[in-house]
């Protein structure tokens, strides 16, 4: 009898998360939990100013403090050729500042001491003399002619522009605009935000002089990339480097880059010959590590009177901070910004992107998104909202008219992506029904007559997940495939290792479910391990919703290889030829006699005890998976709000989310991902942003200023599902970790703007804090840019 797939924790089972057992009991093992014998502690001295020449650094007073073992400065790093390191976008970043500091919070010196208290005391005892320089805190200042050049360390860098890049068909787009009946415009700012994982970054570097081996425990979403980078930068042989990412307390893209702290701790361990632990504090994390967004987006849409979209022009001006350290596939300068409008049938499109250096923290990481698609989709859905209004069309009907229809797949977007599947109209219908869209217009009018401001916002999108395929996607030349290795033990239990890196997604739970689905081995019988480069197969790590599309596919593929070998063993055990064998979940049987069969566990035992003549013993294999295309989940989100006209406070009345992420491996985990993403979307829309004052002081350096929503104010979410399997993924999954963060913010903003629509308000930039909403509703004017930080009367 075939096994009941749900019972063994296979595909579609809402299996409880294996990870939670240890996390809930406080038995997780994070970097800071690891204690090695003789370990020293490192603390970083950060720049208090945003832009200054370093005139001198005096560390002598730090050495006066008992327990201080080593103080490192940029000069000492430079002597070892380690003052600068490469970024993920072919730029360089200072490890410890030598010439200038370029943002507030930049690493200036490091103290290694017996305990972290002493290290912190010693940091305060270091005297640095700064000569202040003019500060640039936005790209508009950066582009002014004659403005201070931030990167005077670089040759051929006359100003502050990093890149000027374009994609799309300009001529075709110009033509579309020439033929348009209506041209609708939108201009907005997606504020800087910070992923702010609960666990900050940190490392323990342990260099053993006797063996020559360097082991680094660290908070990395991509340990193999780190190993490769350390091999190249520190010129250590790759086999002598072991990177271990233990449990991660969240990542959200923040733990993809390589940070100065890691590098310094490695050098410190090499110099002191004992393990050196560095654990960043919250402020350090917020002011110096990879941020997200910070892009000004402008564009216009060419429309036919009846509502048909004809063309789209977009321009982005992005702020990358002091070093261009975006984590993104190397072919693209502004991530996958050109995925905007992928769910709509827009015949022509053109994007121009310009990026600038500023005196702000570097980063531009894919904060819970597939490389800048968050900004792309936010702009898309704000533009669509405005265009529908300009045409006098209903929001939903305008979308329905222009969404790519089910029978148009595969569909080539104007920017060149190939979307391959979806039921966009169906998702829209389900959402409209659930939010009560039918009588909403009447309800809104009635509410307005009582002085109440009601609004519904919609956001629909498909986004490109699961980079690569290797033809188009690589990071620093390393192709974006992924891998899995499966070893089935004698008793039919198994261990699976992948090149991905769990940081809350539940890989331990869901990878085992894929194995259960493919082999019929109960998920509980499968151990999943990731993050140790000495044992896990090479992989590109976990970010950009790529694990299920890529590593998850590798898991299915390796399980299929195992099944193919097991089939040969089964034929041998059943004494029939392989062609006469059939498979059902967990069991091979003889086609002519279903009763005669052997289980996968029988085959496993035989692989070690009774293999056919000439067959290699054992039952293990690996698979490297290079996806043929990206995967394209679809989301339709609906938010209903009521705005208090006297205070600008807006309350969320209802949120409806319709997600089509293809086949769901574990529906409960999927729902958790969507709710988490919607919470972050609500956060962006309402409160979560980082800004800088004119002197370059980061506003948002602690949790009193950088606001993360709590369970208290976060609205409830009503979730719906549609399943359109991915046509090329082995189990039809599409990836879902980020859909809600990506498409969610626009639904909230559209709702508030809709509530105020009759007052002439077209746009309120995020964060939609009550004071900004109040200003919009009392003046009827748009609210643009960041909240001012200058204090005044």
């Amino acid at each position, binding site marked *: 009898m075939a096994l009941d797939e749900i019972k063994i924790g296979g595909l579609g089972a809402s299996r409880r998360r294996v990870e939670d057992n240890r996390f809930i009991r406080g038995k997780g093992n994070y970097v800071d939990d690891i204690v090695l014998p003789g370990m020293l502690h490192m603390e970083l001295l950060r720049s208090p100013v945003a832009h200054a020449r370093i005139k001198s650094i005096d560390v002598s007073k730090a050495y006066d403090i008992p327990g201080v073992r080593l103080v490192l400065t940029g000069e000492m790093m430079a002597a070892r050729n380690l003052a600068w390191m490469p970024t993920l976008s072919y730029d360089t970043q200072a490890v410890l500042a030598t010439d200038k500091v370029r943002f507030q919070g930049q690493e200036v010196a490091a103290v290694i001491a017996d305990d*972290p208290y002493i290290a912190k005391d010693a940091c305060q005892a270091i005297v640095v003399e700064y000569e202040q320089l003019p500060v640039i805190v936005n790209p508009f200042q950066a582009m002014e002619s004659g403005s201070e050049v931030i990167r005077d360390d670089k040759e051929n860098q006359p100003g502050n522009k990093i890149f000027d890049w374009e994609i799309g068909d300009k001529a075709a787009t110009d033509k579309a605009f020439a033929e348009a009946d209506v041209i609708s415009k939108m201009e907005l700012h997606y504020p800087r935000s910070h992923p702010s994982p609960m666990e900050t970054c940190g490392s323990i570097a342990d260099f053993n002089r006797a063996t020559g081996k360097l082991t680094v425990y660290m908070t990395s979403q991509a340990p193999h990339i780190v190993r490769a980078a350390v091999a190249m930068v520190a010129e250590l042989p790759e086999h002598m480097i072991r990177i271990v990412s233990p449990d991660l307390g969240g990542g959200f893209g923040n733990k993809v880059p390589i940070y100065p702290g890691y590098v310094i701790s490695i050098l410190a361990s090499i110099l002191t010959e004992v393990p050196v632990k560095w654990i960043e504090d919250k402020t350090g994390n917020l002011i110096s590590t990879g941020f997200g967004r910070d892009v000004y987006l402008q564009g216009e849409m060419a429309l036919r009177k009846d509502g048909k979209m004809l063309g789209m022009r977009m321009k982005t001006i992005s702020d990358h901070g002091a070093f261009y350290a975006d984590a993104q596939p190397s072919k693209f300068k502004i991530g996958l910004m050109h995925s905007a409008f992928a769910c709509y049938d827009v015949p022509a499109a053109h994007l121009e992107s310009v990026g600038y250096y500023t005196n702000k923290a570097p980063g531009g990481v894919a904060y819970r998104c597939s490389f800048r698609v968050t900004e792309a989709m936010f702009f898309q859905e704000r533009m669509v909202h405005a265009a529908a209004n300009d045409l006098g069309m209903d929001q939903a009907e305008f979308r329905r008219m222009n969404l790519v229809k089910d029978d148009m797949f595969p569909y080539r977007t104007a920017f060149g992506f190939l979307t391959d599947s979806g039921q966009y109209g169906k998702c829209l219908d389900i959402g409209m029904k659930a939010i009560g869209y039918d009588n909403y217009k009447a309800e809104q009018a009635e509410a307005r007559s009582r002085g109440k401001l009601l609004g519904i916002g919609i956001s629909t999108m498909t986004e490109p997940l699961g980079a690569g395929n290797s033809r188009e996607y690589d990071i620093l030349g390393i192709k974006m495939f992924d891998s899995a290795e499966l070893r089935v033990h004698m008793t039919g239990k198994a261990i699976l290792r992948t090149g991905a890196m769990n940081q809350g997604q539940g890989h331990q739970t869901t990878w085992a479910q894929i194995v259960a689905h493919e082999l019929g081995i109960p998920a509980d019988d499968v151990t999943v391990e990731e993050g140790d480069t000495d044992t896990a197969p090479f992989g590109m790590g976990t970010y950009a919703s790529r694990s299920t599309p890529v590593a998850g596919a590798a898991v299915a593929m390796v399980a299929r290889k195992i099944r193919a070998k097991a089939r040969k063993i089964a034929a041998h055990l059943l004494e029939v030829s392989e062609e006469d064998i059939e498979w059902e979940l967990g069991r091979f049987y003889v086609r002519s006699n279903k009763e005669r069969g052997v289980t996968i566990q029988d085959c496993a035992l035989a692989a070690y005890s009774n293999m056919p003549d000439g067959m290699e013993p054992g039952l293990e294999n690996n698979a490297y998976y290079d996806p043929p295309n990206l995967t394209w989940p679809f989301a339709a989100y609906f938010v209903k709000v009521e705005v208090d006209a006297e*205070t600008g406070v807006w309350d969320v009345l209802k949120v409806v989310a319709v997600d089509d992420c293809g086949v769901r491996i574990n529906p409960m985990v999927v729902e958790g991902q969507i709710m988490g993403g919607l919470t972050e979307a609500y956060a962006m829309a309402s409160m979560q942003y980082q800004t800088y004052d004119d002197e370059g002081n980061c506003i948002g350096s602690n949790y009193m200023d950088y*606001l993360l929503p*709590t369970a208290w104010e976060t609205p409830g979410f009503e979730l719906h599902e549609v399943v359109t399997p991915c046509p090329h993924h082995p189990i039809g999954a599409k990836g879902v970790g980020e859909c809600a963060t990506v498409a969610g913010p626009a639904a909230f903003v559209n709702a508030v703007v809709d509530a105020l629509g009759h007052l002439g308000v077209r746009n309120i930039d995020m964060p939609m804090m009550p004071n900004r909403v*109040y200003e919009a509703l009392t003046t009827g004017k748009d609210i643009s840019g960041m909240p001012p930080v200058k*204090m005044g009367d």
Partner: protein
Amino acid sequence: MYPSRFGYELPKTVEEAVALLDAHGGEAKVLAGGQSLVPMMRLRFAAPEMLIDINGIEALHYNRVDADGTVHIGALCRHEELEDNPAIAKAIPTIAAAAPLVADPIVRTRGTFVGSVCHADPQGDWAATMTALGGHIVAQGPKGKRDIPIADFVIGPFQNTLAFNEIAIEAVIPAPKGVRVGNYLKLERRVGDFATASVAVSLDMKGDTVAYAGIALAGVGGRTINANAAASALVGKKLTAENIASVAAAVAAVAEPRTDHRGSADYKRQIVKTFVERILTGLLNTSQKAA
């Protein structure tokens, strides 16, 4: 958290604590709930040489309502103990309304009412509430106890008038002249945030006539804003839509908001005005309903 090095004492009596404060001549700090002091030590904005932890002084852990309606809040009474507290809710509705809006539930299990008043944060909820209520603080020093009226106690941002060797042992709110009603409204960006603007209103009612009116504000100035003078226009009168509007405008006028990333000065004034109106209108409506 890696603060600077500090010493620590855990006295069992107020006398012992006062003696320790005295002995350290200004270098020691009282540790109550630690919800303001410890974050400052974490950021190394505060680096006291010695902490005198009063959490071991069980005698300070109380809140009680006397037969005549006088309320005593001991120095170890946590914010949480003023929430869902029927005796307090009856005696001082403004405290009951404010308690669930102070910080977040976790902070409320530790932070103390008296500690918050001592801290005198211009954005703090309790200094404003006390100011509206018009009570006093009982301080104890080497020479014994003294009463300090709240208006003389909170004198500026993070400034109170305790001597270095004095401890605030309780807050006292006098019995009402009649029936005390009131409310507290706060605009915050999310739970656990300090006030963008908040309004404490407390009225003593004799029938439908106002016998005492206190209003104070948090978040809208460099210090706790005492709007009791503006509120006193209601004394001897019945609440009406007209006097509510004029008091709301008068209170908004004494606010001293500054423009910052939470909003413009004008916006904060608008919130103050709206909140005063909403609270007083609410009180008027309930009294009309009761009649």
